[in-house]
């Protein structure tokens, strides 16, 4: 089916899209000791290009200290029928500065340009929000989760922007009894949004004090919202199985009620679905802690991200501290099967060097091609947390690797002809994080 707006008619159509030739990743200097702005890097991922596997453009933000982190598009397949919309702008929040950078990626996709900055102070003044994280569009509007109020206290709320990037105020009508915010995803055909919990900005921004988990300063609940009423209606207390529930993904199939969350510290995957009128949840993957030979406390994997392939067949997850990426076949979402695993950095010393580059950090953020064959992985989590667990990242910088994935039979293998060493950036070692493709990706598009 051909239409006029951005994105694809269905997930099945998205899978058939042309391969990505460019991707964008943010790279930070915040917290590194280099007094330069964070930037958006354009990476050439076209294997036929002479500059394949290199950064070909860098768009610096106007100020220092933003800590760019996650990104989101102004429009996705939720606007597929709307000829007035296009996937033109990438929104880059600064977690620390509260600034929102609106970047035009369409005028020259290889060299994105800054379109507008929404000043962090204005957002605080108008909405009492700070600590922006996840960006999703809904139709022609944009909502962004913020993890704190203007003073960095939880639970924060949701900023609503219109398509001209003007502040419309708070999106939600109520935060109910929610204690913390983080990620969210919605499935409009079921009138549901699910949100997860990290911690207050004042808790997670200075670094990770493990002891604060026991003092209930980190989250352990998932929240189900009435999406149209914009208020939470049910919460699941995950307990010790769900410490730091971070990334939330529904199936891409808009009719499905199945969704998944990675509980970072417990290093578990939580699965939920609707049975009749009842939402149910279960733990489907539990990664065991490992002992480091010299440390007193067992080391969790720290599953900071999960991703579902566009065909809903595979779930990918990381163990940032153990240093591995895994692929699970989730065609039966109650019984995932491990089908692939690769090692990359990590604290257990299993893969200190990849394609000739010494890896500081472990697999952290990742983005999968729409056809499910290429998984791009970066190694930095968050500046202060990097500095705690991987202090050598200050001089080595982050890396981006590509993993070849088999979407038919399962399996993963690190591509030998691709690596980007952000330790060699012109202004000194920077740290790359989330990646996005100009044509949409596996973590952006939602179907109405």
């Amino acid at each position, binding site marked *: 089916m051909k239409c006029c707006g951005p994105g694809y008619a269905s997930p099945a159509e998205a899978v058939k899209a042309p391969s990505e030739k460019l991707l964008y990743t943010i790279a930070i200097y*915040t*917290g*590194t*000791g280099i*007094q330069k702005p964070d930037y958006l890097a354009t990476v050439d991922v076209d294997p036929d290009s002479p500059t394949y596997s290199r950064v070909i453009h860098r768009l610096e933000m106007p100020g*220092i*200290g*933003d*800590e760019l982190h996650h990104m989101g598009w102004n429009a996705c397949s939720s606007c597929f029928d709307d000829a007035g919309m296009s996937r033109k702008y990438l929104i880059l929040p600064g977690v*620390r*500065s*509260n600034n929102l950078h609106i970047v035009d990626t369409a005028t020259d996709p290889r060299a994105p340009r800054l379109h507008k900055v929404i000043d962090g102070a204005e957002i605080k003044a108008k909405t009492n929000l*700070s600590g922006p994280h996840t960006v999703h569009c809904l139709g022609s509007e944009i909502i962004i989760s913020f993890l704190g109020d*203007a*003073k*960095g206290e939880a639970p924060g709320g949701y900023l609503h922007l219109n398509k001209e990037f003007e502040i419309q105020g708070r999106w939600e009508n109520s935060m109910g009894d929610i204690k913390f915010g983080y990620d969210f995803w919605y499935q409009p055909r079921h009138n549901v949004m699910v949100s997860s919990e990290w911690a207050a*900005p*004042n808790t997670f*921004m*200075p*670094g*990770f*004090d*493990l*002891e*604060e988990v026991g*003092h209930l*300063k980190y989250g352990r609940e998932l929240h189900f919202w009435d999406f149209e009423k914009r208020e939470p209606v049910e919460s699941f207390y995950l307990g010790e199985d769900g410490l730091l529930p971070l990334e939330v993904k529904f199936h891409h199939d808009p009719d499905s009620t199945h969704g998944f969350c990675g509980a970072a510290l417990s290093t578990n995957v939580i699965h939920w679905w609707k049975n009749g009128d009842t939402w149910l949840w279960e733990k489907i993957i539990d990664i065991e802690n490992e002992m*480091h030979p*010299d*440390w*007193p*406390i*067992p*080391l969790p994997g720290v599953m900071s991200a999960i991703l579902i392939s566009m065909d809903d067949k595979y779930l990918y997850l990381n163990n940032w501290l153990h240093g591995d990426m895994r692929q699970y076949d989730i065609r039966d979402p109650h019984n995932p099967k491990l089908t692939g695993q690769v090692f990359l950095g990590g604290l257990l010393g299993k893969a200190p060097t990849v394609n000739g580059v010494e890896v500081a950090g472990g697999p952290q953020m990742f983005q999968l091609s729409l056809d499910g064959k290429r998984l791009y992985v970066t190694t930095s989590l968050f*500046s*202060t947390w990097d*500095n*705690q*667990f991987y*202090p050598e990242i*200050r001089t080595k910088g982050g890396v981006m690797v590509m993993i070849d994935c088999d979407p038919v039979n399962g399996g993963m293998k690190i591509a030998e002809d691709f690596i980007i060493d952000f330790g060699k950036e012109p202004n000194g070692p920077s740290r790359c994080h989330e990646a996005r493709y100009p044509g949409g990706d596996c973590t952006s598009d939602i179907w109405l």
Partner: protein
Amino acid sequence: MTTHTVTITNRNGATFEVNSRRPLLGQLRDQGVDLPYGCEYGGCITCAAKLTKGEIDQRRQVALNNRQIEHGYVILCVARATSDITLEIGVESHDKLYRNPFLDPLQPHELKADIASPKV
């Protein structure tokens, strides 16, 4: 207005005059000191510096745990000088700011002020 002298050891002992009413970050930046910073409300630790001599008031900070305070760290975006002070600035001063919590746990009295127990 009370003014104090800030000496920065890792900038060749350069000295700057500051008043006691405004936070150090803005006053030092205004005088040309290139300092890292992030949230500007005392919550994110990006601007942490190490105080090696003198007194400051940083009651508004909420980022540091008691061990970090014990090591002399101050949050420049909210800290005000209440005497002449000596600082080390920037990431070079962060040698004791970060720790791996699985390798080096905090004692109950070393947590952030709102949850710390008294030292026994």
